[in-house]
């Protein structure tokens, strides 16, 4: 206990200004940043192709995180709840698409209904249907969760809702793992469309089975491109929704002041439900794309991406949509570069260290607004 007392304040009557010593802290951070920069630049010049390859896989990861992070940040912005079950909604999205594809062949329906359709259209329409179905199911699921578990606690202490969220998360993971639900196995995921890989080496070539691309080629796949495009589209449409539509205005009002919004005639409960639904739909979309990119799924699959996406949202400034996006991209790169150049086992540790350092410099994240004092 003598230790604990040591942090007791000592407040002499006359004190010198400590602002003069600010350089120490700044110098420390600068030294850290410099170190990272040197490592990065050195590794870039060591092997530029490898660097590019690693950066591409970081981008792919970052864009998936972005899709999940949007849901976290929206829900947090409006009800100030860390929705731990969000990662499990993401998992559910992957599973819905798995059942749709493997058990019901939903991705082939255009071919069954219109036999003359060209295969490329069949694939596109079929895959879109699968994705839409997952998004709708996830949205419904999130609204149900919100109604059953979170709504009764809206006026309870905030922590009660948080514990409930943890409970819901456990429930989804382990109820899903029961044998008659999804079973606890890692299930090989059947993709609704094939993955095609290209490599860049004197122009763009297709990678074919059994022929390794030449040394120094940079490979990328159609799923990486799809993830990036979809993620950017979703981000833009969400921006549009929030900034330019009536419901977006109502959402912003609710986030700003729930009671005042209510007084202005906004149906706050409905807005909260809509927010959950939109966030979950994005998570469902992310789940499908994630499963296509990394095709082995089980019920715990949402835990880590969910956590990382949440960290990304915090990094960018939770409550801010562009923040979530930028945060996710940084997170993806940080992970990928750490894995590539420092040490894979330390990857999560380093991602979190970055988070902590960023928060120390900008306490509410990169795009976050300064916290209002609760008085």
């Amino acid at each position, binding site marked *: 206990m003598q230790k604990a007392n040591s942090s007791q304040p000592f407040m002499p009557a006359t004190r010198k200004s400590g602002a003069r010593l600010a350089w120490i802290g700044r110098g420390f951070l600068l030294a850290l940043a410099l170190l990272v920069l040197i490592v990065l630049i050195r590794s870039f010049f060591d092997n530029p192709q490898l660097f590019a390859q690693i950066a*591409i896989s970081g981008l792919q990861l970052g864009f998936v995180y972005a899709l999940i992070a949007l849901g976290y940040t929206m829900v947090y912005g409006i009800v100030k709840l860390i929705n731990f079950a969000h990662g499990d909604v993401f998992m559910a999205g992957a599973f819905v698409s798995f059942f749709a594809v493997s058990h019901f062949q939903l991705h082939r329906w255009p071919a069954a209904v219109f036999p003359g359709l060209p295969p490329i259209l069949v694939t596109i329409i079929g895959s879109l249907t699968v994705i839409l179905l997952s998004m709708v199911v996830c949205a419904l699921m999130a609204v149900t969760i919100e109604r059953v578990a979170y709504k009764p606690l809206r006026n309870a202490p905030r922590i009660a809702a948080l514990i409930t969220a943890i409970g819901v998360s456990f429930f989804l993971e382990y109820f899903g793992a029961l044998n008659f639900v999804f079973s606890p*196995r890692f299930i090989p995921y059947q993709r609704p469309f094939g993955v095609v890989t290209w490599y860049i080496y004197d122009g763009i070539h297709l990678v074919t089975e059994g022929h390794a*691309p030449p040394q120094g080629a940079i490979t990328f796949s159609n799923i990486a491109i799809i993830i990036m495009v979809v993620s950017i589209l979703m981000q833009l449409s969400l921006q549009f929704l929030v900034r330019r539509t009536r419901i977006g205005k109502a959402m912003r009002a609710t986030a700003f002041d729930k009671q005042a919004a209510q007084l202005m005639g906004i149906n706050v409960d409905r807005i909260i439900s809509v927010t959950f639904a939109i966030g979950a739909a994005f998570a469902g979309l992310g789940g499908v794309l994630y499963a296509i*990119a990394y095709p082995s799924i089980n019920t715990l699959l949402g835990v880590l991406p969910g956590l990382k996406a949440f960290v990304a949202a915090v990094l960018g400034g939770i409550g801010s949509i562009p923040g979530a996006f930028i945060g996710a991209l940084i997170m993806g790169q940080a992970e990928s570069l750490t894995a590539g150049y420092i040490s894979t086992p330390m990857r999560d540790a380093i991602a979190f260290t970055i988070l902590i350092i960023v928060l120390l410099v900008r306490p509410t994240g990169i795009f976050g607004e300064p916290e209002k004092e609760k008085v």
Partner: protein
Amino acid sequence: MRAFKITSLFALAAIAVSACASAGGTGGDIKVAILAPLSGPVPTFGVSTRDGALQAIDEWNAKGGINGQKIVPIVEDSQCTPDPAVNAAHKVIDQDKVSFIIGEVCSKASIPVADYANSKKVIMMSPTSTATGVTVDQNGKVKDYIFRACFIDPFQGKVAAKFALDTLKAKTAFIMLDQSNDYVKGLAEAFEAAYTAAGGKIVGKENYTGKDTDFSTILAKVADAKPALVYLPDYYNVVNLVTKQAKEKGITAPFMGGDGWDSPDLDTKAADGGYYTNHYSPDDTSPTVVNFVKAYGAKYKDDKGQPKTPDALAALAYDAGNLLFTAIKNAGSTDTTKVKDALTKINYAGVSGKITYDANHNPVKSAVILHVTGGKVVFDSVVAP
């Protein structure tokens, strides 16, 4: 002192209740505990282990039990985590008065359970814990009452290295390993040691963590190093992801792994061309294996209603049960010191080969090499110890 009164009242009740409980003890049955991770990180292993062990118990009971005594299974969830596993062990040993344990599956849970079981003179037969520390303590002393049904990491790594060099003629290898997984790490180290000792060259070694899904960074390095073989001794779920991403990146080197690959969920298309060492092959035509596969399939169905093919975990749990029961039969009593002695002298032909025990209570038995080809896993060869 109201508090005292309440406390002592409850205490008296508890004493009375537990006195009755211990009086209503065992009859002529042999209680066997099955500690399996039915929840937690690897529930599939738990389910296979439980089913395999229960299969053995049912067969013995159908034959009239051991020396006329029926076997009663007690299944406990040990979660592949030390705390719950130890709690489960305490419960079955002290509460249910069990003298025989089949389990745990994961080494990190088996080690503390083994320590406790050994101190209580309870025989523990781990079907699949491969770490040396399960049967031997940190000073190299054998834990008298602890046995296992699987071969240990060094042996499997050695077999893989020998096969890679002699049969596949692969002179260069790349190792991918999960630093946080003792099983993977053990196999990788054993492989590396045996491979380099026999003249092979390790051209690269990369770590990942078991929760990873994106391996493109590591695979980029594999593509750069151009090895003749990639050694990936992880579980099927990781193998599925890695081999799929490797195929998409155009990596042609064959992958090789250990018994963790063995699962009906192994993606045989992605892992095509790969090899792995295993405890047994369900395609084996020896009557023991054929009968086991048939009986298991008759008892357990998968989600489509088809008979399940037992994986290595089920086979080992089945062998573990049979080893234990044969030893009890040989000893002619359920006295654990006698059963322990019977186990050290056992010579049992199980599904995973002929088993005898060495001085460290590790089974001496052969390994099989399986080849993933044409969407199927086929038997390649047997490697004797």
